[in-house]
Structure formats: C-alpha cells, structure tokens
C-alpha cells in the first residue's frame, strides 16, 4: 500500500468480486460482516469514525490474509491488507491473541514449547560451518500444540479460555502444560515431516546448520494479530540474533515464514539475509506413476511472487487440478484456527472436499498449517514426504 489508508479504501467500487472468493464469508453463513466486501465497507465507516473499533474487531481479525480478494479486485485493492492495517492501528486486542503475543515476546515462541521444538533433530548430523541456516521457525513443531489448544478450547469453552489467557500470561505459560491435550502421534507425524525435509535436502547434497533450542519463532503471529510495535521490536531482535550467529542464508521450510522474511519484514526493518524456500535447493524429481492434486499455499501464490518450483519437482507426475488452483487457490482456513476455529473447520472441510473430488491418489500440501487443517485422510501428504517416498 503506497498511499494513505483512506485513499486506498476509497478506490473500492464495491463490485463484490472480493466477496465471491472470500473463504470466510461462506464459512460464516454469508454474514457480510465476515466477508471481504463487508470489511472494506466497515473500514470506510471506521475511518470516518462512524463506528467503534470494538464493533469491527472480529471482522478484521477473522480475515485469513489469503489475498484471494486482491487477485480478483478490479480496483487492485486487498481487503486483507486493509484488515491488517486496521488491526495494527487498533488498540483493542483479543485476549487470546494478547496471550500469544506476550509469549512470543517473552519466550520467542507462541506457546513456549521449549525442547519440544528440537525432538525431530535427535541424532541428525548438522554442519555448523554450512552457509545454509535450516530455519524451521518452530512452525511444524507448533502444530500439534495448536491442536492441543483447540482441544483445550473444546473442554473449557471459548469464553473460559479467553478469560484464563491473561492468567496464563501472568504465571508464565509453558507448552508442556498442554500435555493432557497433546496427541503423541501428531507430534511424531510432524517430527517425521521435518525429518523428511532434512532428508530431501541432504539427498540433494545440501549441508545444513541448525540452531536447536536457540532457534526463535519468526514473529509472524504478531503481525497477524495486529501487534505492530511488538513486531517491530521483535524483528529488530531477530535481525541482531541472526547477525550474532553470523547467518547469511536462511532456508525456510514453510510459506508463512518464507514470505514474512522475504517480503513483509522489510516494511519494518532492514533484513540483510538471503531468504530461500527449501524446495529451491531440492534437485530430485519425483517418480510416481499415479496421480496427485496439489493444495497450493496462499502465501506461495499470492504474496510477492508466484512460487511454483514444485512443478519442476513433480514434472513427471500426473497432476489433477482442483477447481481452485494456481492464483485462485483456496485457503485451508488455518490462520483463523486460534481465534475463529469454527470458521477454520468449515473452510478446511470445503477445501478438502474440493481436493478429494479430483480423485487423485495423493493430496500434496507444502505448509504445516495447510497440512494439519486438511489432513482428514491418508491421501494428504506433505510434499517432503512425497519426494522422500517417490
């Protein structure tokens, strides 16, 4: 956005194209408040001070930032970007979001999972001298813990969870507290994906450096939840941290961290590192005689570039496209998992049905958030697992 928010918003002609592709509108049973056009219209009122921040908070918070609206907007504006800017500007914050933000600032980890982030790397060989930093940003590791939070929400109820959030923050929250709700198999499943990513890179001759327990989270959720000041401070810390470790090249393994470090962070801090998505370093071609369908991550399709290296890796495999693919790929609903789990469930169910209806042998994902939301049967496979297997 190169202009002031009010001018940007005023370019909207209210054609409704954004609503037609906005995943949250349908998931919210077509309540316009949860649709892209609704968000822009509410932004118009908020800018004029004709409505209060409190009333519109959920509308902006529920935006998935999938950028589907930007792709179809005749006037070239993004309801996602508007939501993000207004969240950043707003002084009202969701208590659960606040709790997570405080954890990130305090522990460099949204849920303070501690050693849980390094279990996958046990026994693996890393090279401290390698030019490539293998940066998981704890994303794959966090997914089973996010599910545990969702389970806790089910037990406690939405209201109670939000009520307890400030207490959790105050007492110093530890991810291990989620043990009762944590599914061992899920932890193993995600650790196994990390292992496969490591393996396909190793097989491609890439030696990696890994920071183990010291590895911090990227800070992405600070931006997603509208904590701009905190994110700026965190981003500065992150830069200094990487500098102190003499890092030059960062190999990211999930789309959210990749686009954050490659594009978004530059609005806040000078980020003098080369950012790579790990598939760029893979020199293997998958060899599979069946069919696959690909769930393309929004962050790889509609953020800064159209990242499609996976087509080279899968060039010998028959791909069946779902209804929504490439620039029109449909969000898995994941980004709403913390604050609006009901929306996430409906969106992921819809997308899973779309993918499943291709009748492909495998449904390939390439993002931990997409994977956990779409893993509704055995056909769903992370691209690293697929490459390692075939």
């Amino acid at each position, binding site marked *: 956005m190169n202009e002031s928010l009010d*001018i940007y918003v*005023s*370019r909207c*002609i*209210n*054609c*409704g*194209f954004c*609503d*037609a*592709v906005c995943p949250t509108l349908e998931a919210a*049973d*077509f*309540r*316009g*408040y949860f*649709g892209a*056009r*609704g968000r822009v*219209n*509410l932004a118009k*009122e908020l800018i004029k001070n004709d*409505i209060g921040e409190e*009333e*519109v908070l959920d*509308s902006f918070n529920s935006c998935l930032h999938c950028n589907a609206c930007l792709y*179809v*907007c*005749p*006037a*070239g504006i993004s309801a996602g970007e508007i939501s993000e800017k207004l969240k950043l500007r707003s002084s009202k914050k969701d208590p659960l979001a606040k709790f997570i933000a405080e954890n990130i600032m305090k522990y460099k980890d949204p849920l303070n999972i501690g050693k849980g982030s390094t279990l996958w790397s046990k026994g693996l060989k890393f090279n401290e001298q390698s030019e490539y930093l293998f940066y998981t940003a704890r994303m794959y590791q966090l997914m089973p813990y996010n599910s545990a939070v969702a389970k806790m929400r089910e037990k406690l109820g939405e209201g109670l969870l939000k009520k307890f959030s400030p207490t959790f923050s105050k007492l110093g929250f530890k991810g291990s507290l989620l043990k009762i709700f944590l599914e061992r198999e899920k932890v193993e499943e995600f650790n196994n994906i990390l292992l496969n990513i490591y393996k396909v890179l190793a097989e491609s001759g890439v030696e990696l450096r890994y920071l183990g327990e010291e590895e911090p989270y990227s800070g992405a959720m600070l931006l997603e939840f509208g904590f701009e000041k905190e994110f700026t401070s965190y981003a500065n810390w992150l830069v200094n941290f990487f500098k102190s470790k003499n890092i030059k090249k960062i190999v990211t393994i999930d789309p959210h961290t990749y686009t954050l470090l490659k594009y978004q962070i530059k609005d806040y801090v000078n980020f003098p590192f080369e950012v790579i998505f790990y598939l760029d370093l893979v020199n293997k071609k998958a060899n599979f005689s069946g069919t696959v369908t690909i769930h393309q991550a929004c962050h790889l399709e509609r953020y800064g570039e159209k990242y499609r290296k996976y087509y080279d890796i899968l060039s010998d495999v028959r791909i069946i496209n779902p*209804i929504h693919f490439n620039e029109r790929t449909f969000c898995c609903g994941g980004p709403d998992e913390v604050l609006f789990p009901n929306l996430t469930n409906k969106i992921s169910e819809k997308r899973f049905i779309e993918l499943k209806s291709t009748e492909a042998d495998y449904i390939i994902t390439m993002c931990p958030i997409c994977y956990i939301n779409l893993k509704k049967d055995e056909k769903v496979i992370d691209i690293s697992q697929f490459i390692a297997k075939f």
Partner: protein
Amino acid sequence: MDLLQYLTVKNIDFLSKREDVIPYIRDASYFTGELPIAVVLPKNENEISEILTKCYEENIKVVARGGGTSLTGSSISLKGSVVISMLRLNRILEFSGGDRYVHVQAGVRIDDLNSYLQSKGFLYPPDPASSLASTVGGTISTNAGGLRGTYYGSTKEWILGLGIVLADGRIIRTGGKILKRSAGYDLTSLFVGAEGTLGIIFDAYLKIVPRIENFTRIMVFFRKAEDMGKAIYQIKERGLNPLSAEFTDKISMNIISRISGIPVPDGSEVLLIIDIPILSGNEYEKFIQIIKNSNPTGIKSLNAEESEVVYKARKGLYSSLLNEREREGEYIIIGDVVVPSSEVPEALNETRDLIEKFGLKISLFGHIGDGNIHANVFTNINSNEEMKKAEKFLEEFGDIALRHNGSVSAEHGIGFEKKELLIREFIYKKSIVNMEIMKSIKKILDPKNILNPGKVFDL
C-alpha cells in the same frame, strides 16, 4: 409482535446490529443506501414467504439482494427496509443434459454455475462482466447480458421457469423444465428485468447448451469506427454469427495492447475482437474475407495463449480503466445503450462528437455484435458540477440510442439511475402508456408498494 421478535420466533436468521447491516448499504453503483432495520438470511422459500407475509402486514419495505453487483442501484438498501440476502440459497438442485435444463436456487453465482456445467460439457450462456459475483436471481432481475450476447442473446432467452414469492407471501411457480410452452400469459417473462419490484425469485429453471469449444479469436484494427460497424453488419447480414464481437476505442485498445503485448498497427483508432465459431469448416474464411474488405489497419489471428490473455484483458477492461483514475473521488459511471447493428456506425460517430462536445474523459467499449455500447465516464462523484455534466452526457448518449431505434438500457437495468431515461424512452417512442401498464402491473402484484420501492420508476 414487531418484525425482529417475529423473526426470532420463526427461527429465521437475521442481522440487525449496525456493524452487521453496514455491509449491505452499497452495491456496485455510485449510490449509497440507508441503513436497513434488518438483513435477513433465509435458507429457503418458506422462510422468504414468512418474511414477506409479515412485511406486507406491517408495510415494511423489502429489498432482495443477490451478489450486490448492480451498476444502477437496484440492490442498495432503503431506509427502514428489510434486506433479504439470497446468498444462502446457493444450491444446484437438478441437472438434465438430455432435457437441456438446470434447476438452481437464486443465490448461485454465475461463474460457479458455469464451473459446474463445464464439467458436464454444457454452458449457461449469459456472462455479464460481473459473473464472478453476480447471482442467477440478480441477473434474471436485471436481464443481464454479456460478451456472449451477440450469439446467444441476453438472460431472458434462457429462463424456462421461475419460483417466486409474491409481496404478500404467496409462493408461485411459472414455466418449468420444458423448452416451449403456450399456456396463457408468459408470467416468467414478466419477472425478468423487474429488479425485485414484483416478487422475489428464489429458484429458476435455466436453459443450457453444449459448449462450443472450437473457435478462433481474432483482433481487427480499424482507423474508423464506422468501418468496424459496417464489418459487423455485413458479417451478420451474410448469415454469419460471431460467438462474441467486442469493440474498444483507442484508450481501451492501448490497455489491451499493453497487457497482451500485441502491438497496435499505425493509424488504428478502434479495435474489434471477434470469436469465430468453427462449425462446418469454412466460416473462418468467410469472416476474414468480409473483414479484409472493410479497410482494417491490421488483422491478428490469436494462438491459444494470446487468445486467453486478450480475453482476460477484455473482460478486465473496466478494472483496467479504474486504474486510470487520477483523482480522489473519481468513479466510472457507465452508460449502457443499444442500437440495431445497422445503426452502429452512425451511433458511434455521433457518440464521438458528443464526447468532444462535453470534453469529458470517456472511454468506449462494448458488445458491438449486438449493438451494445458502453460509455465509461470518469467522474468525481463528490462534485455536483461534474455529476450534473456526466448525467447530461448520459442523457444525450441515451438520445443517440433512441434516434437510432435503440434503448437507453441494454443490460444494466434501470435501478435508481435510469428512471428518467426510461420515461424519456417511452416518450420518444410515443408510448408513455407503457409506463402506465408497468405501474398497473406493479399495483396488482404489490399493492402496498413494499418491494424495492423507488427502483425502476416512482409510483
């Protein structure tokens, strides 16, 4: 019991908080509506019937809303009204390729319908530029057109039957799954283009056709719009039917050239994009022969990739023009007239003179195959002076259409915007009684004037 209590008792979902109803006060026109008392989200026709029964009793205004894509203000909310959002009625109920129909609920979006039909090898032809967002019910209510109109006609040609809730809550059905019918007055047609003023359409039987996959897209450049108009007329005169025939003026031609990378030949002022169906084998040669004899400055036959890029550029022309806006508050108000093909050359000449006279920034494009011309007027909607000038231009633009035996509205409906132009058309045609007939029909079907009052005409 007031309306909101009634809806609660009836277990009908509604929204009434300010932040919930704000998203419904605008559509794609430049009008802004008033806050409604509630937005109702019915799941079926029975709920719509219950809502209307109560609104009829209580004299509450009702505005039906599909995708909210009207360019004339048809779907904006009114003060003290109830908005009925049709988006939850979004199921495809039945498909029959053999009987050539699809039965759908009114809230199905046009592109979604065609995605479904494409998988079965069929097509529902109406394709307004808003097809991504516009709904079956909305496009029937405005008799929408589109790029394919020259070959297939507009929406009215494709409606076999309708399910409608009347103002007092009664549910009726017109037509059905049959391709022909001669049984009394054609009530189906009565509701096409009625913009929600006579009843609320909740489902429709739509006629479908097998897709024509084999066609060639060509770009033809001309020095004079007149030559292009003559070419189109001769093509049709000789019994040929382009699948679509789109024209643009120089501003829009340069945009398409920039997007597609296809250069504009020297001296070109007008671009024609034609889709030639390849049915029996020699259509292409016949088309090309006529075009070559029409003084083109260049002809470019497109390969599959170019064809796709040019189609997207044409469909996105309005978007591209929006990005040419330079001033705060600037909008594009679209004139939408139609004339017979034979009158296109002269109508275009007169429009060019009119643009010069007004000195406004205007770009012309349109579905020239069926004589539909759009004038895109760049206007600061916050300036009374500019708005008056734009309105005057559109009035005279409408007059050009009328002088050439055309109409002031081809495919966008009347809404709020063109009420005066509609009267002008009836007066010009010495048939103002048409307005009286319309008002009489309205009074029979909606005696309390609760359905979208103030749209199409004032009672």
